[in-house]
């Protein structure tokens, strides 16, 4: 006979009532599983100080890293609409509300205009947090307007991709954003204004198969997953294992689809150097 008698079996706390460990002080690396402080992480350009893993950051962090201090956010009033009345296990309208609450963002892309080493640049950066960084109409429209802004003021464009692809809940509308963004980018080329595409982890599907691959310069962060089809789908199709390093930035560089890979700590410097080569009147 034990000293204590168990009155209830098993763990009774519902998931939603569980107490989370306090966020904000420590960061445990997803890759090497080592711990560092948030402060160290931020000072290291949101890369793991131990293994250099590039943490999946969002638009705000990139603006912070790249721009010389001041910048202005453009087109932030655009929000998605559930035009198809789409519902799978959850209605799309509800997914949108949840994503907004969770991320404090309006959609999966933010556009900012500012300066990099005193040269003007428009940055359109994706937020993976918002429904997997999926491209719906708002993402397409923000890119389209960012391009208009670049054309009007003759400012180079940087798009930072981090996306699972097109947003299924907007069906053909999201598919057409591929055509829309690519068609608009052709105007940049015609006007002789440089467009740099930075691919980060992950960049797949309709995003890769449109604006992400269309940079005058295509660059990527190290070890990012970049591809058209996802690795799981490819594996199921060809019925064999995929080689190590398949669809990484390094793989794409080797196969000729990237100009170079850039460590996040050098990103601003490299962009500044690049922009210095182009003289836009």
């Amino acid at each position, binding site marked *: 006979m034990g000293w204590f008698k168990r009155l209830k079996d098993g763990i009774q706390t519902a998931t939603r009532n569980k107490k989370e460990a306090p966020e904000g002080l420590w960061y445990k690396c997803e890759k090497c599983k080592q711990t560092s402080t948030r402060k160290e992480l931020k000072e290291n350009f949101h890369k793991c100080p131990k293994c250099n893993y590039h943490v999946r950051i969002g638009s705000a962090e990139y603006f912070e890293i790249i721009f010389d201090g001041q910048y202005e956010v453009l087109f932030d009033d655009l929000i998605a609409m559930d035009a198809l009345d789409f519902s799978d296990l959850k209605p799309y309208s509800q997914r949108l509300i949840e994503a907004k609450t969770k991320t404090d963002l309006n959609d999966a892309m933010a556009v900012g205009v500012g300066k990099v080493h005193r040269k003007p640049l428009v940055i359109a950066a994706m937020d993976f947090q918002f429904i997997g960084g999926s491209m719906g109409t708002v993402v397409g429209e923000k890119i389209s307007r960012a391009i208009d802004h670049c054309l009007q003021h003759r400012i180079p464009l940087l798009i930072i991709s981090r996306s699972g692809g097109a947003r299924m809940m907007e069906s053909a509308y999201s598919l057409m954003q591929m055509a829309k963004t690519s068609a608009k980018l*052709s105007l940049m080329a015609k006007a002789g204004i440089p467009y740099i595409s930075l691919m980060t982890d992950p960049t797949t599907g*309709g995003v890769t198969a449109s604006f992400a691959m269309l940079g005058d310069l295509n660059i990527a962060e190290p070890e990012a997953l970049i591809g058209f089809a996802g690795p799981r789908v490819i594996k199921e199709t060809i019925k064999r294992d995929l080689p190590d390093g398949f669809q990484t930035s390094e793989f794409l560089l080797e196969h000729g689809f990237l100009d170079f890979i850039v460590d996040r700590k050098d990103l601003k410097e490299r962009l500044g150097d690049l922009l210095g080569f182009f003289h836009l009147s």
Partner: protein
Amino acid sequence: MVFLDFEKPLETLYEQLKKIEQVGSEGDIDVTEMLKELEGRIKNKRKEIYSNLTGWQKVQLSRHPERPYTLFYIKEMCKKFIELHGDRYFQDDKAIVGGIGNIDGQTVVIIGHQKGVNTKMRQYRNFGMANPEGYRKALRLMKLAERFNFPIITLIDTPGAFPGLEAEERGQAEAIARNLFEMAQLRVPIVCAVIGEGASGGAIGIGLGDRVFMLENTWYSVISPESCSSILWRSWDNKEQAAEALKLTADHMLSFGLIDDIIKEPLGGAHTAPEEMAKTLKKHLKKAIAELQEMDPDQRIMARIDKYANMGVYDTIPKDTEPEGRKK
């Protein structure tokens, strides 16, 4: 004849028809009246079934094994046609065909996905799933068309771009993206028609044009209903539901302003009267090309880009309730 599951009532009627015909051929009984009556019933039943197809049923029709494919339409529409091969970089893709042809005196370049007509050919054509070289061949032929001022026709019928290992190595995404980028600026008219399946990037990779049509029983979507079901429902069993949710039919696409027109199919689908279907398709393509040739190339390009730039729906947060932005 192949009957789809929702066509079962028709199959029963056809079986009856066959039996009566057999009795008739044996000679003793006059069956003309009975045959007439039955044929009438078949017609009515067909009308009944086809006036109210669900999204999923249209997906099934678009994949009907007897459905006409690109090369059939080319053969029907062109007095002369010469198929051209290869992307000049790697190899010739069998899932996308293309060449130069003549439609009633007008030289055109026609490009389209090609599916196989039997098991062996289906494999040969990779089920209409193109590799990067297919998209690059398409672009090469489009550039050829531009150089010699031939209008471009593309026929879309694919379950998607091929998701293979080598396809990734050779840049499937880049090939599709490049086509979109280049097609936006081509100086000749581009007319596209979805003749079967319009699945995702694989479809739009040859699908950016001044006019985009869909045959009545085809679909166009960002993802196939099966894959959508497997991702969003985490099961392959919700494909019917996914097909409805994706709103992928020609009617939907037209009402969303994402395509320019619907081309009627013969009652029962394109495969029931393929020659008639080819005639209708040709009429639409010719008319569109004639209209587009009236335009100045620069105007046409701007109109094309504007058309795509206006696609999509979004809302805006009213200015006064806008939360403090991230302006700093």
